[in-house]
């Protein structure tokens, strides 16, 4: 896609904005519509736009596949760790009140951390699925060439 100048310039402008919007709905989800699922999807779509414009190889240099696996597990583990931290500090699983002394502060800390875990998992899983399909296409093309 070296020749598509307009696409490249527009994407260069849009990708940071989409990522910024993703971060906004991630961390402003307590006050306005949003949350981890939506933020993860928006963030992943910015990366997918990068793949469509600059190609999969360049995109995998930014976020390698191994990083996706690690991050998607870390997201879920972060969620579970918050829950278990509540248990260790003397509450039920996923009870946020024991985490911090203030009642509201504890809940907000818990919600933001949990949503961050969800967001990281959703974003990396979407990237991984898209990568798998794009890679599949390359492999199929190679195999067909061998047959022909």
């Amino acid at each position, binding site marked *: 896609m070296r020749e598509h100048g307009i696409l490249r310039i527009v994407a260069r402008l849009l990708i940071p904005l989409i990522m910024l919007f993703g971060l906004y709905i991630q961390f402003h989800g307590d006050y306005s519509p949003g949350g981890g699922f*939506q933020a993860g999807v928006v963030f992943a779509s910015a990366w997918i736009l990068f793949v469509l414009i600059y190609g999969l190889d360049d995109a995998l240099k930014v976020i390698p596949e191994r990083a996706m696996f690690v991050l998607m597990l870390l997201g879920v583990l972060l969620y*579970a760790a918050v*829950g278990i931290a509540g248990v260790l500090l003397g509450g039920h699983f996923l009870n946020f009140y024991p985490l911090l002394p203030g009642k509201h502060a504890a809940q907000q800390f818990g*919600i933001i951390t949990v*949503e961050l875990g969800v967001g990281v998992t959703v974003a990396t899983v979407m990237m991984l699925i898209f990568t798998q399909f794009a890679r*599949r296409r390359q492999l199929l093309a190679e195999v067909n060439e061998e047959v022909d």
Partner: protein
Amino acid sequence: MAVVRMRNLFASAMLFAIYSLLSAGLFAVLDAGDVALTEAAVGAGISTLLILAVLTVARRDEKPVPGHKLPALIVVVVTGAALIWATLDLPEFGAPDNPVHTHVAPYYIEQSYPDMGVPNMVAAVLASYRSIDTIGEAFVILTAGLAVWALLSVPPRRRRRKLPTEGEDAR
């Protein structure tokens, strides 16, 4: 209707995206900001992208199935009729003493701000009151990602015969 009748999968993916975008607009009109955002991001955005990604490795056109399947038609008609019949038993739409308004919803509406100081009630319910549901959803997403990886990371087998299609490969 057009989505169902369309044989060209690319066009039906596009129509499905438009349908999602329209329903996102509908949710926005109904003041359901979270649902509208989700529908726009997930329904119109990422699922269309993933469908298109699938279409790059699959055939562009649906294989036409000749004739009609009578048992399938009967099952669909009976199920639909039963569901419509069941809606007659539903309580009146929007009545204040409906079960949905008297169960836990009033508690959430009244107590979520004093409990947590989070203005967005949807976030409060999703992440705190119903946190175990949400961890389940996170695990579902993780499992989906792992399943796709497990299915697609196997290298494709070399085909014995050349396909009659023009360059597009079916799998």
